[in-house]
């Protein structure tokens, strides 16, 4: 499902206008992004937690050329769903 459809559904659920829902969704997404950029984990109650994890520096091989590339240490975002959510999707 795309964002647009999701917004439609939210609007239908909540009774708020679509534009308002879009605004709120954007605000939500932005605040989540900001918090993650800061390096902090963001919980979404009932759904899960967005986590920031650090990756170690590692050497990887280009599959085509075969040359070794060193990828520096960095971060990645993971989403850990709640147990409730895990059950629901079974």
């Amino acid at each position, binding site marked *: 499902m795309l964002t647009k459809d999701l917004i439609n559904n939210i609007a239908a659920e909540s009774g708020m206008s679509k534009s308002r829902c879009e605004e709120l*969704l954007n605000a939500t997404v932005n605040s989540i992004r900001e918090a993650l*950029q800061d390096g*902090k984990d963001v919980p979404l109650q009932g*759904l899960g937690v967005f*986590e920031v994890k650090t990756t170690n520096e590692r050497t990887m091989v280009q599959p085509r050329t075969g040359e070794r590339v060193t990828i520096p*240490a960095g971060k990645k*975002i993971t989403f850990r769903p709640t147990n409730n959510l895990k059950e629901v999707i079974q």
Partner: protein
Amino acid sequence: MSEKINYTDLKKVIAAKSNASAKEVDAFLSAFDKAFLQALTEDGSVRINGLGTFTRKTVAARRSVNVSTGEAITIDPYNKIAFAAEISFRESIASAPVEEEVKKAISEITDPIRKIGEQATEIMSILHDINAMDAKPTPEPEPEPIVKPEPIVEEPTPEPEPEPVVEPEPVVEEPTVEPAPEPEPEPVVEKPVEKKAKKVKDNSISHPWIAAFVTVFVFILLLGSLFLFVGYRFKKWVGEVHERTSVRTTQVIRPVDITPVVTPIVDTSIITPVADTPDVSPVADTSVVTPETVKKHDSIVTKSVAQPAVSKFVMPKFKDTLGIEVIKPGTYLSGFARKYYGKSNTDLWVFIFEANKGKARNPDFIQRGTELAIPKLSKEWMDLNNPQTRFTVDSLLHKYNKQRAN
């Protein structure tokens, strides 16, 4: 895992960004939850612009082992939620500097500086203590620096510096300078005041540290030179020792000129030591006889006039021993010679060495603990005035000097 923000704080931020009330945000979020769940269960995936895609994926059944019993078990298939962050978002996060690395880099720079600063303050305090030990009033004004700038700043009149500073001083200083000797309050105080004024002026952080650096550097230089000097003196005292165990056994390095005393009369029959010991096997001539050169040897020149020339190198026979001496640090062959043969006969150490040929190779360095048998020498062989004795001894000395030179 990193620090987790509060859900309520998140809601506040959302409310602030969208100019919505807390109620509105709550309503939205609950609707969002429902829609999200519905989308996942029905569609199987949800894409949110700016964040990423949440996908329901099925994990196939697989064989495994019960870790406790060891029996084979089958893990049932199940669904999981996979989240793939949006590419731009993913990259922006990935390239952000890792906090620990940043902290590490900063600490690598600041830690040594901090350490040096701490050391500097320590050194400064030590210096102050040293200064305080001199019973002069100069350190007294030191607690003043906070007070001093005020008189300088407050006085608006363009008077020369010492005056406005000195005037409030008697009022301020009296309570603190009381223990200090009376006769020199003003002139001594003025100097540190000016110094203090200057010091207070450039209140930069590096100033005391530079002084500390210089002090430490000079200190290290002094210590280093002292250490080297002490080491050199010690080495000299011990002597040029090759091995720890060997002991320097020659007392004096005497330049010995080997040219023997030669007089026009050549008559070997007069040489008594040879006649006395008939079983001494004559050794082949090892020294060079030059009739022209005359060696100056004190005892022979002054005491005897006509001496029979000696050209044969003859060694005394070592029959009896006078005693056994052990080589220790501080003992030497010539010392033994002096002890057993007389004060003036230190040169006879050569016989001691010769008698103990097998025990030591180099007369200068003999192993500590070596036992030397001191040979008994007949009167003639103990008499250095005797030309034969002198000749033999000198030949041996010459031999050893040659060895030493090599």
